[in-house]
């Protein structure tokens, strides 16, 4: 068992996501930063859909009760293994009784912990990702226990890769979304000429941005939205839907973030800035 001694600010079990249920209103969920997730699982030679822990801003304190191997990726939360500092993007051997804890947020916003073989967690509609109301909780609580398989001997083919700081990039690549063509020339200019600041209203459902562009009175019928869809409110504010975002919406959809752009935005916190760049 992996025992959650302290859960941290917002730590949840996530995997690659829950697909093929959007038509009945079920969000995709899954990891916010697929790049970090993919690398951590790659180092451990896990399957590409293995469940991991996603931690936000502050990390948990975890007790491993079985031998295994781990890899960390994403934000640098000053992790320590039995009080000794350890690094992201590197495989570490774990002995039963080891304690992993986290300290100061050095960069990024979301950090990932992958365990050899993946975390064993109830699968709901094909995914282990926590999401209320499909799962009872949407994050870990103190004292929780999560299963994983014991691994005593693992020789990683690649024990370490370069520390990746893609998320320090300020540029977020976007493509056109269905209502992009309804924007005025001035609104388009405002979108791409200036930078935007992440508002304090940011979570796994959506990131709101502080600055507004020109207001509008476009109206539309409710239609599909996806993770990475940028909605424009009548007041001209931008809302970027994230992995737990609703599957339909009634605000004009003006831009669509690429998966890589979602990963970058997921590593931004309140007060950080981004600029949009339109892909051709």
């Amino acid at each position, binding site marked *: 068992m992996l025992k959650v001694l302290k859960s941290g600010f917002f730590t949840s079990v996530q995997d690659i996501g829950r697909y093929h249920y959007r038509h009945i209103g079920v969000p995709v969920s899954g990891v916010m930063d697929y790049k970090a997730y993919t690398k951590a699982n790659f180092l451990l030679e896990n399957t590409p859909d293995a469940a991991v822990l996603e931690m936000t801003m502050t990390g948990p304190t975890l007790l491993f009760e079985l031998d295994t191997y781990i890899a960390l990726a994403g934000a640098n939360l000053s992790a320590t293994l039995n009080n000794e500092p350890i690094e992201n993007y590197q495989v570490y051997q774990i002995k039963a009784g080891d304690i992993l804890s986290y300290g100061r947020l050095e960069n990024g916003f979301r950090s990932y912990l992958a365990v050899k073989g993946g975390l064993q967690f109830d699968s709901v509609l094909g995914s282990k990702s926590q999401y209320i109301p499909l799962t009872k909780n949407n994050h870990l609580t103190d004292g929780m226990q999560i299963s994983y398989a014991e691994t005593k001997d693992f020789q990683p083919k690649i024990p370490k890769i370069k520390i990746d700081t893609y998320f320090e990039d300020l540029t977020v690549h976007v493509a056109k*979304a269905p209502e992009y063509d309804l924007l005025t020339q001035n609104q388009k200019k405002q979108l791409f000429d200036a930078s935007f600041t992440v508002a304090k209203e940011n979570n796994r459902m959506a990131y709101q941005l502080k600055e507004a562009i020109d207001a509008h009175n476009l109206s539309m019928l409710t*239609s599909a939205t996806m993770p990475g869809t940028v909605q424009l409110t009548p007041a001209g504010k931008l809302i970027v839907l994230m992995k737990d975002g609703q599957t339909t919406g009634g605000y004009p959809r003006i831009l669509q973030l690429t998966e890589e752009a979602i990963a970058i935005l997921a590593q931004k916190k309140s007060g950080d800035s981004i600029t949009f760049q339109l892909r051709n």
Partner: protein
Amino acid sequence: MKKYPITIKPFGLHAALIAWPDQVNEGVLEDILQFKHFLMDALEDGWELIPAYNSLTLVNTCIPIDENKFHGQLLTWYKQLGPKQAVQRYQWTLPVCYDSEFGHDIQEVASTLTFSVDELITKHTATAYTVYGIGFLPGFMYLGGLPKDLEIPRKQTPRLHVDKGSVGLAGKQTGIYPQDSPGGWNIIGRCPIPLFNTKASPPFFASIGDKIRFKAVSKAEYDLHKIEGEVGIYQPEKKLWNA
């Protein structure tokens, strides 16, 4: 069959949106369902098709879309769409207890709309509502067809907690809250059966284009259906609507 002037719009690198004219009506909805039925056969596995009101969104997270080629292909397919296929649409009858214990606002709604509570219940249960969309929350249905004289504004102050199963009225809409959530609709009753069940296949019973009718039940019947729902033996009444 009648063809509509559809347009294909870009939606990022992995999706495309097919837009019908900006209208809420059965003709558009039926045409969307016909094309969706066709596309489910024509497209390879891996695509997700999400219809709502006047749009059909196609998502494929596995492969990026070649926009020019794919948009052209969709238009060609739409032009070639043959005679109407039998897309089965169902009518579901859902029990609702309109007692004031559940319908917290029913007295107030009836008096605002100048009906008696019984008249309000008769009107609300007399219509077969059309499912135009499913979204917002897992299993939340956007229902169309509310009689004009049942239109009432949202509550001035939303409730922080609306119980799962609550049946509400707001503007041109009526609907059921599939989960406990905050909400600003006027609550007139409650449906005792769980609408969304992750252990069932499919987890949600209704599809876009289906019809929903409400049937008034007593508190005793409500309690019975609630138990049947909890142990998983309640089956909502279902019949083919467009047979």
